[in-house]
């Protein structure tokens, strides 16, 4: 119950910041729309390939909100008040995650509706992709909690911008990982973002052959590590902030 209570509060904090909505929903929707107007001669920009990229790109703003929310709570001393309350660390982490899930669902629905309006053929696999993307989003929320736990409010937005850029360059949403040579490809394959896009792409297009074992393992290793790390870092920082 405390988790739900904390999640409700976090949800209200996020949606009452209009910039959140603009960045998380309107900007990716605009990009999805605008890139379809140019008829770019690349497979990457075809709706069935580009929409999963936009979904993951939208999640990077979730990282930004999570980071900003956690760092704001730290600087406002709200976490001192909550630290004295009977709330436990796991309730904080789940509370932050649950608060963001409705925003992810709204993001997904709007992204896929626009994609369908623009010509993506509807199939039940789109719904499967939406469900899987909620799991993918956990990685981005956890990254946000880690950033918000270690950085100040200003620092959080800066570090989150790095994640946004990394997703743009290494996820394969704008250009294939092979485009910039072997070194770049290696970096893309070491980071989890290309795997995130590939997993959603494969499920959405009912073409699971493109999802390799490496994609699945890499995604789960990064996600589990990020969730554990977020809980540990958050707890540690909560104590050290209070020294």
């Amino acid at each position, binding site marked *: 119950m405390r988790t739900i209570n904390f999640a409700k509060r976090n949800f*209200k*904090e996020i949606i*009452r910041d209009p910039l959140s909505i603009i960045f998380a929903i309107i900007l990716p929707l605009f990009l999805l729309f605008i890139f379809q107007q140019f008829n770019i001669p690349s497979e990457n920009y075809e709706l069935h390939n580009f929409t999963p990229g936009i979904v993951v790109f939208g999640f990077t703003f979730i990282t930004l909100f999570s980071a900003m929310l956690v760092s704001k709570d730290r600087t*406002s*001393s709200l976490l001192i*008040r909550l630290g004295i*309350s009977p709330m436990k660390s796991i309730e904080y982490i789940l509370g932050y995650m649950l608060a963001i899930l409705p925003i992810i669902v709204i993001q997904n629905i709007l992204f896929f509706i626009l994609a369908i309006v623009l010509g993506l053929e509807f199939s039940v696999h789109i719904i499967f992709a939406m469900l899987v993307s909620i799991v993918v989003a956990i990685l981005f929320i956890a990254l946000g909690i880690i950033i918000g736990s270690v950085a100040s409010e200003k620092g959080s937005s800066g570090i989150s911008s790095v994640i946004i850029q990394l997703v743009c360059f290494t996820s394969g949403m704008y250009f294939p990982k092979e485009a910039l040579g072997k070194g770049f490809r290696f970096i893309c394959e070491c980071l989890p973002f290309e795997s995130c896009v590939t997993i959603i792409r494969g499920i959405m297009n009912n073409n699971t052959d493109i999802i390799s074992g490496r994609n699945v393992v890499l995604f789960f290793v990064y996600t589990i590590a990020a969730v554990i790390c977020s809980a540990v870092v958050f707890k540690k920082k909560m104590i050290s902030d*209070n020294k």
Partner: protein
Amino acid sequence: MYAIETKNLTKKFKEKTAVNGIDLTINEGELFALLGTNGAGKTTTIKMLSTLILPTDGEVKILGMDVVKDSQKIKEILNVSPQKTAIAPNLSVKENLEFMAGVYQIPNKEAKIDELVKLFKLDEVLKQKAKTLSGGWQRKVSIAIALINEPKILFLDEPTLGLDVIARKELWKVIEKLKGNITIILTTHYMEEAESLSDRVGIMAKGDLVDVGTTEELKTKASTDNFEDAFVKIATGGEL
């Protein structure tokens, strides 16, 4: 039974001793002011007493319960109004109260909120977002939130810091209303605040609790006519 009892309470941060073996007892229903210069160890002491950080050495008993072993039970019966504003900025005053009622799982939430709204006269700002409130209102809301779980012990860490004289006097009135029903531990830099509100005062300097007594007792000990001079004399060991 004492509300708070500490024996050799010590907190070290690496080589630095922030709180140095404090022995202190605070009675139930007492308003105890903890005074000291910046870095004297007041806030660290409050953080240890309120379960936020663990002592390096010594023991703390809150209403007979050990602060390390029984921290979860203790958390249910105390609350704090921290030094910086600790409210959710985008939530209204009512939502802030509801949120903290949820954190403490208050069963008769609406009745408790109504009671606090009346006590702190929060009607006019109830629907206002916390971040749009003036400093005085934010402090009032912060203390109201701290009373949501009907704490037996309340920590007020510099509750009137930065407020204008009228807002400060208004808060004093509120604190006076609470006196006797709740054990209050107050830290402040304002001598007149400690003199006006507290039953007893503890003076800290460089991590030590150098003296404890009523303001009159401390003035007599320091052979001064006013409390500020007494505080300066005691806190500096008579150097000033």
